[in-house]
């Protein structure tokens, strides 16, 4: 492989992984922008979405004859499920604690995360064919490879751009554009920005803050739901522990970009995806150091620019 081919390949894989992290990071950063809560359960909501996706594929009969139908069905069912779950978590755990000290809410978020992880393990232990008959509740589960292996640049091409990477971009990028439009142009988006800037003033202006917060959790959850379908299709393997790692990556992305800032979260996520790709795919024996690099960069950013990369330039937090 020539240097250019290597760079191109790293860009393709890095951006694909980064876009998935970005979808999760958006949910993180939106919730933080509105209620200043780091929702540690967010990654686990995404994990439960993956289990629902696998269950749907399983009910359709494993290796599906019509993959696009299965993908469509998953995109139709999983995001509402995750949105409802996220809304329920807010309604029953965070909202009663809205006026409690920040630490209380944070600890309960960790608690919710544990509950979700265990739900995921029980789910994986169901005696279903797709879960290996439930024999190994804790083991990672194979997700059917619905898109197969098709190199769009030709099967002999050195650089690989597969249908999976295209799928990631086709689903995630429009969604991000839609979200930006929603937040900046619609009435509800304006209300969200108002609550983010000053909840008390927003309430005085007649905005139902509880409704806006609930809506934020619903949108964040739906994005996590889409991310779960995309991640499951892309990595073709899921596990009850994946939420922790994905959540951590997304959280890092949000902080890196400037927490509370939407474009910042996407930028942070793409940086992480690319950094990992460079470490794993280019630096000799770099895979074991990729976490060190990612978190090292995070520390440097926090030391020299505590607000994150885009944190201070954009004033609005949503």
């Amino acid at each position, binding site marked *: *492989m020539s240097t250019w081919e*290597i760079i191109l*390949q*790293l860009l393709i*894989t*890095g951006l*694909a*992984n980064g876009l998935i992290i970005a979808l999760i990071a958006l949910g993180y950063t939106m919730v933080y922008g509105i209620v200043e809560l780091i929702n540690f359960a967010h990654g686990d909501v995404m994990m439960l979405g993956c289990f629902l996706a696998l269950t749907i594929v399983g009910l359709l009969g494993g290796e599906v004859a019509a993959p696009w139908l299965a993908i469509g069905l998953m995109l139709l069912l999983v995001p509402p499920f995750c949105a409802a779950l996220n809304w329920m978590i807010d309604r029953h755990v965070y909202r009663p604690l809205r006026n409690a000290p920040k630490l209380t809410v944070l600890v309960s978020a960790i608690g919710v995360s544990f509950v979700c992880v265990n739900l995921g393990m029980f789910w994986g232990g169901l005696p279903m064919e797709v*879960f*290996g008959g439930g*024999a*190994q509740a804790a*083991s*990672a*589960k*194979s997700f*059917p*490879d619905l898109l197969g*292996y098709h*190199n769009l640049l030709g*099967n002999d091409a050195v650089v*690989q751009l*597969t249908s*999976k990477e295209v799928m990631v971009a086709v689903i995630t990028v429009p969604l991000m554009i839609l979200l930006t439009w929603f937040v900046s142009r619609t009435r509800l988006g304006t209300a969200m920005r108002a609550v983010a800037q000053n909840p008390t003033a927003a309430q005085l202006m007649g905005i139902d803050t509880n409704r806006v917060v609930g809506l934020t959790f619903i949108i964040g959850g739906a994005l996590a739901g889409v991310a779960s379908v995309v*991640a499951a299709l*892309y*990595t*073709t*393997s899921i*596990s009850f*522990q*994946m939420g922790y*790692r*994905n959540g951590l990556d997304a959280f890092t992305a949000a902080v890196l970009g400037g927490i509370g800032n939407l474009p910042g979260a996407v930028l942070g996520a793409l940086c992480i995806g690319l950094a*990992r*790709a460079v*470490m*794993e*795919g*280019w630096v*000799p*024996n770099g*895979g*074991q150091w*990729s*976490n060190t690099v990612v978190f090292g960069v995070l520390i440097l950013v926090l030391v020299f620019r505590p607000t994150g990369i885009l944190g201070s330039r954009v004033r609005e937090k949503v």
Partner: protein
Amino acid sequence: MIRTALAAAVLSLASWSAAAESLTIVSSLPRTGSANAQTTSMINGIKMAIAEVGAKVTLGGVEHTIVYEDWDDASPERGAWDPAVEAANADKAIRNADVMAYIGTYNSGAAKIAMPKLNQAGLAMISPANTWPGLTKPGIGEANEPMVYRPAGNVSYFRVVPADDIQGAVGAQWAKELGASKVFVLHDRELYGQGIAKMFKLNAEKLGLTVVGFEGVDGKSGNFKSLINKIRSQKPELVYFGGTTETGAGQLAKDMAAGGLTAKLMGPDAFYNSALMTSAGDTALEGRVFITFGGVPPEQQTGKGKAFVEAYLTLYKTEPEGYAIYAYEATKVTIDAISRAGKKDRAAVLAALRATKDFDGALGKWSFDENGDTTLMVMSGNTVKAGQFSFVKLLGQ
């Protein structure tokens, strides 16, 4: 009153005669819990070995009865081996001057507890099942292994099963037989996986294979797609992963298939469980994955091993479990060493065990090396066919 006196007299008589003409072999294995089926079969093997010599051995012209005691090193609370019980077993064996050999343990963790105690007391320990390399081999396990198990400064622990690191050596040989000339070696950065991967690399280079990469991977990372790209650019025919199904073996197989990488994937016995199928699915594994496994299936035994399996079948009406033949072999070599020692003396038995050379047993002809390891390297090579593990051939012969 009279009855008590009588009983005491009988007891002292019994103990006197026992002291004169009997010696004891004990085994310490987990009898309570999930390992029970395996250890029951192992104890059957031990009993067969003792019965074959009529439970007698002649030392210096005096016939000694071999008394065998089956001790449990598990506790009901844990349902598995218990450090406290294992320690108590070792102490009990040391206190009883009749005990000439300690057969066990089943778990390497339990061995770590019994080994220093027995070594200090100069009592021989023979394991039919421990595979952790650090118990005997310097430079593979932790820095203070194995000297930490040898406070007396000599070898008093022996094992008849090949240790885990042999899998690296045997795997390299198999990789060559499978037609690989360039291999890429990965490991999960854990003690077990990294040790095996190192041994694979070392032996692959000795056999003239080109190792085009040796990398530690993050088993918890979501996918290995970038890594696969790097591997693909090196064009290896085989990828070796020193890792487990918990540290990404299934994900690696999936990403190799998804990345259009046609290289074979080889791994150690930690691949050999059903979690591999669950995490990778059948299609990613079929014809791609090759696994080395320490035990040799009973139906693959030949010669004396075959005779053992047949005798076992007639006696117990069921197939022996995987480790039964190793327990049988451990007992056979112990009895052989005691009779070569020629006297009921722990030091003499130890010296005889260390001197074991070309022992012609059920597993073949083998010796103990200077670390107390068997010189045997026979393992089984397996692959996956239609979602099931399937035996391919014997390795390391």
